[in-house]
């Protein structure tokens, strides 16, 4: 808006290009995510050891960087002599599965609630959005902690809990967009032609909201993965001996002094995947909304 009012008198300095453009971000992020997903899918082919196979003769052995290591265990072993690399690769299965499923669940709940609130307005809007506000004031991890404590930790419960704890992120974004879309001619026309609510949502609102939804959803996958590992770390995730990144990290925490590599490689795996997903999300955001490049 302001750009129109001001004549561009001063010659603009030559536009400096950001070092990391959107294409770079999307490529790097997408590659990391793709590699992680492929590793998770083909875990049985890639891992030299069974992730749960214990071998007490080689417990807490370091990996390739030390000559005291046990042969064949590239990243060393944990307290029960289980192969760390195999456990990390199998752990990516649970982390990615929980992260993506929880994201899908919360996106489904949140965008449905947001579209309905935006389209209906009035009383419906007040109930849905005030409820979202109230839940915003309540830390999501606190809700997740309480619910896991109540329901018990397993993959299904974790997905449900994480899905419910973050629906309002989508609801708020989608609500705002729907409310402004509602006044656009093509939506008004569809409504006036007698289009049912569901038809208007599916055919006219959703395609418009989709780019924003994709960006938010991608960034939320990263949050979900972090949240899952945090819960596992607190002892409220999928219970051990299941190989999840959070569990491996928590085990590593108790043996930080004698076997620091357990925690370090688990942490590295988490940060690499989450960073990749964040990069992809940021790249997508710049792609769909060039105005927000500054962010």
């Amino acid at each position: 808006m302001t750009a129109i009012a001001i004549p561009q008198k001063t010659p603009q300095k030559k536009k400096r290009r950001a070092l990391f453009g959107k294409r770079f971000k999307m490529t790097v992020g997408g590659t990391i995510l793709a590699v992680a997903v492929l590793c998770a899918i083909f875990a049985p082919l890639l891992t030299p050891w069974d992730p749960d196979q214990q071998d007490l003769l080689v417990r807490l052995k370091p990996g390739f960087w030390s000559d005291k290591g046990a042969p064949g265990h590239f990243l060393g072993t944990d307290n029960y002599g289980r192969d760390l690399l195999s456990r990390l690769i199998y752990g990516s299965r649970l982390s990615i599965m929980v992260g993506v499923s929880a994201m899908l669940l919360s996106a489904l709940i949140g965008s449905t609630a947001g579209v309905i609130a935006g389209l209906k307005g009035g009383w419906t809007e007040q109930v849905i959005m005030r409820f979202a506000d109230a839940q915003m004031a309540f830390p999501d991890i606190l809700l997740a902690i309480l619910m896991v404590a109540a329901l018990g930790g397993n993959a299904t419960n974790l997905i449900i809990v994480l899905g419910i704890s973050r629906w309002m992120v989508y609801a708020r974004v989608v609500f705002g967009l729907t409310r402004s879309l509602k006044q656009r001619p093509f939506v008004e026309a569809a409504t006036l032609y007698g289009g049912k609510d569901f038809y208007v949502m599916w055919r006219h609102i959703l395609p418009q909201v989709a780019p924003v939804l994709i960006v938010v959803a991608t960034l939320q996958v990263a949050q979900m993965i972090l949240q899952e590992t945090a819960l596992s770390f607190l002892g409220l995730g999928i219970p051990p001996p299941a190989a999840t990144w959070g569990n491996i990290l928590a085990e590593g925490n108790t043996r930080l002094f004698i076997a620091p590599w357990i925690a370090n490689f688990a942490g590295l795996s988490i940060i690499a995947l989450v960073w990749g997903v964040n990069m992809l999300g940021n790249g997508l955001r710049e792609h769909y909304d060039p105005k927000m490049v500054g962010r």
Partner: protein
Amino acid sequence: MILRYILRRLAFLPLTLLLVALATFVVLRLTGNPVDIFLDINRTPEQVEALTQRLHLDLPIPAQFLIFLRDLLHGDFGESLQFSGSAATVVWDRAGATFQLAGTALGLAVLLGVTGGIVCAVWRDRLVDTIISSIAVAGQSMPSFWLGMLLIEFFALQMRWLPTSGYGEPRHLVLPAITLATILLPNFVLITRTSILELMGEQFVVTGRSKGLSRGRVLITHILPNAINPVLSFLGIQIGTLMAGSIITETIYAWPGVGRLLIGSIFKRDVPVVEAAVFFIATTIALANLTVDVLQMLIDPRIRRS
């Protein structure tokens, strides 16, 4: 005017707290019978009955909720099952440690984050900006508990400069505060950067520059005062993240605050303490948000008028 605004905001407080109370109650009653979990195998029927009555578990659920609400109004969550004394006192005794940690971390995060954000915005897309922004994005991907472990590994185990855990002296505070601050720091860098960059396109900034003010002067007199508000409102949102992060940080460093008490009490099924701790955290967040809103209104007259 200001008073009326504060009063109107205060009127919403009970509603939020009622929802918190309801959520806590529902979730904890789903956990099954606390009596079964808390008493060991050698319990006598008399013990079971005494505890059932003490927690009002013999009454119907709606009645239990009403009793819960009534006691809540008196600040009474019942007696703790694992400690002697009332749950409210047990939580309150640990509040100081949590406030100390959270306050230090928040101060650190705001100070460094805003400075970093300003630097990034002023030298946009230069090397400094690229480096700081990249670190910030990487920081957002960092699980805070792993950072805590790395700090312990390096500063406590390798260098032996700082203790791995403990409470009381300033040196005990260093590592936990850094860990907790790092959760918020990247967000503050990025939000400050964005806010300033958005302001740089505003008319009053362009006018300031075209009438001959230097870049630095425009930054200090026109941009920064206007950037306070978006950063403040973001700070309000981050209070929840801060309290959630303190739960994890306290667990890593065995910091004797409310967060660690909460996690410990969940595993011990100490229902009154869990209720009191959750309620304490939610109330802190609500009050902090209220403070931020009032501050924003005091700073920016535009909000007062709307």
